[in-house]
C-alpha cells in the first residue's frame, strides 16, 4: 500500500478527508483553466471598453456587464468544471458527488458576489468621473492575486504563480500606464498564466493516467 496520503493529517480524519478532496479537486488543472478563462474574459471586456468613447451608452453597458460578469463567473466556473469532468473525464477521474452546499455558505457567496459587483460598478463610475491615475490599484490587484494564491493555493505551482503575478503587478504600476491598460495587462497576464499552467497540469494528468491504464492492460 502506498502511504503518501497518510502524510497529510493522520491525527484528524476530517482534516485528512478535506485535504484529500482539495488535492483531488486541483489535480487535473481544470479549476485553473476555468479561472484563467474567466480572467481573460474580464481582460477582454476591459479592453473592449477602452476602444469605446468614455461615457457613451455602449461603454456604460459594458461597465454594467463587467460589474455583473464577475459575480456571475463565480457561480458559473465551478459548475463548468463539474460539467467538463462528468462529460469528458469521467472514465479517467472517476465520479464524486459533493454534499450540497449549506444555505449559510451559499448566502455568504452570494453576498460576496453582490459586494464585488457594487465595488466594480462604484469604482468604474468614480474613475470615469474623476479620471484618477491610481497606479497603486494595479499593484494592489497583483498583490491581492498573489496573496490569494499564496494563502489558498496548496501546491508549489500556485506559490510560484502568486510571486510572479505580485511582481508583475508592481512592475506594471511603475510603467505609468493608464489604469484600464494596466488592468487589461494584469488580468490578461494572470489569466494566460493560469490557463497555460492548468493546461500543462491537465495534459500531464491525462498522460499519467492513460499510461497507467495501458501498463495495467499489459
Amino acid at each position, binding site marked *: 500500500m502506498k502511504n503518501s496520503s497518510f502524510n497529510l493529517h493522520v491525527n484528524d480524519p476530517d482534516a485528512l478527508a478535506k485535504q484529500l478532496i482539495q*488535492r483531488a479537486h486541483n489535480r487535473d488543472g481544470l479549476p485553473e483553466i476555468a479561472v484563467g478563462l474567466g480572467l481573460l474574459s474580464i481582460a477582454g471586456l476591459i479592453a473592449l471598453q477602452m476602444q469605446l468613447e468614455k461615457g457613451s451608452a455602449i461603454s456604460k453597458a459594458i461597465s454594467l456587464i463587467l460589474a455583473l460578469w464577475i459575480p456571475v463567473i463565480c457561480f458559473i466556473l465551478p459548475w463548468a468544471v463539474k460539467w467538463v469532468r462528468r462529460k469528458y473525464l*469521467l472514465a479517467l477521474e472517476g465520479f464524486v458527488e459533493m454534499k450540497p452546499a449549506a444555505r449559510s455558505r451559499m448566502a455568504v457567496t452570494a453576498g460576496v458576489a453582490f459586494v464585488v459587483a457594487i465595488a466594480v460598478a462604484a469604482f468604474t463610475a468614480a474613475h470615469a468621473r474623476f479620471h484618477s491615475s491610481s497606479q497603486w490599484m494595479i499593484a494592489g490587484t497583483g498583490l491581492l492575486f498573489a496573496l490569494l494564491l499564496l494563502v489558498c493555493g496548496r501546491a508549489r505551482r500556485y506559490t510560484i504563480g502568486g510571486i510572479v503575478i505580485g511582481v508583475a503587478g508592481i512592475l506594471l504600476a511603475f510603467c505609468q500606464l493608464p489604469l484600464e491598460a494596466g488592468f487589461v495587462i494584469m488580468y490578461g497576464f494572470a489569466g494566460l498564466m493560469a490557463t497555460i499552467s492548468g493546461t500543462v497540469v491537465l495534459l500531464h494528468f491525462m498522460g499519467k493516467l492513460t499510461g497507467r491504464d495501458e501498463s495495467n492492460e499489459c
Partner: protein
Amino acid sequence: MNAKVQQLAGIDRVIHEPARLMLVSLLAAVQEADFQYLHLTTELTKGNLSIHLSKLEEAGYVAIEKTFKGKYPLTICRLTGQGRDALAEYKRTMKAALS
C-alpha cells in the same frame, strides 16, 4: 487497568485500520464517490481498495452500488447511517482516550 486504555481496547477495529479510516473519512465528507475516484484520491492500489471496501461493506458501513453514467460503468460507494455513527463513535473514543 486505566479506564482510558480500557476504552481503547474496545475500539472499532474495522474503522481503526488506517486505509479504512481514510476511506470512511473521505466518504463521510462527500455524498458519494466511485471506485476510480477513491483509487486516485487515496492512492491505494485497486486490489487493496477493493479488499478494504469489501470489509467496510460487510460491516455495513459502506453501501456499494454498480451503475452506469452514460456508457461508463461506475461502482458507487456511499457511507451508510451505520458507518456515519461508527465514525462518530470512533472519533469520540479516540478523542477521549488521547485527551
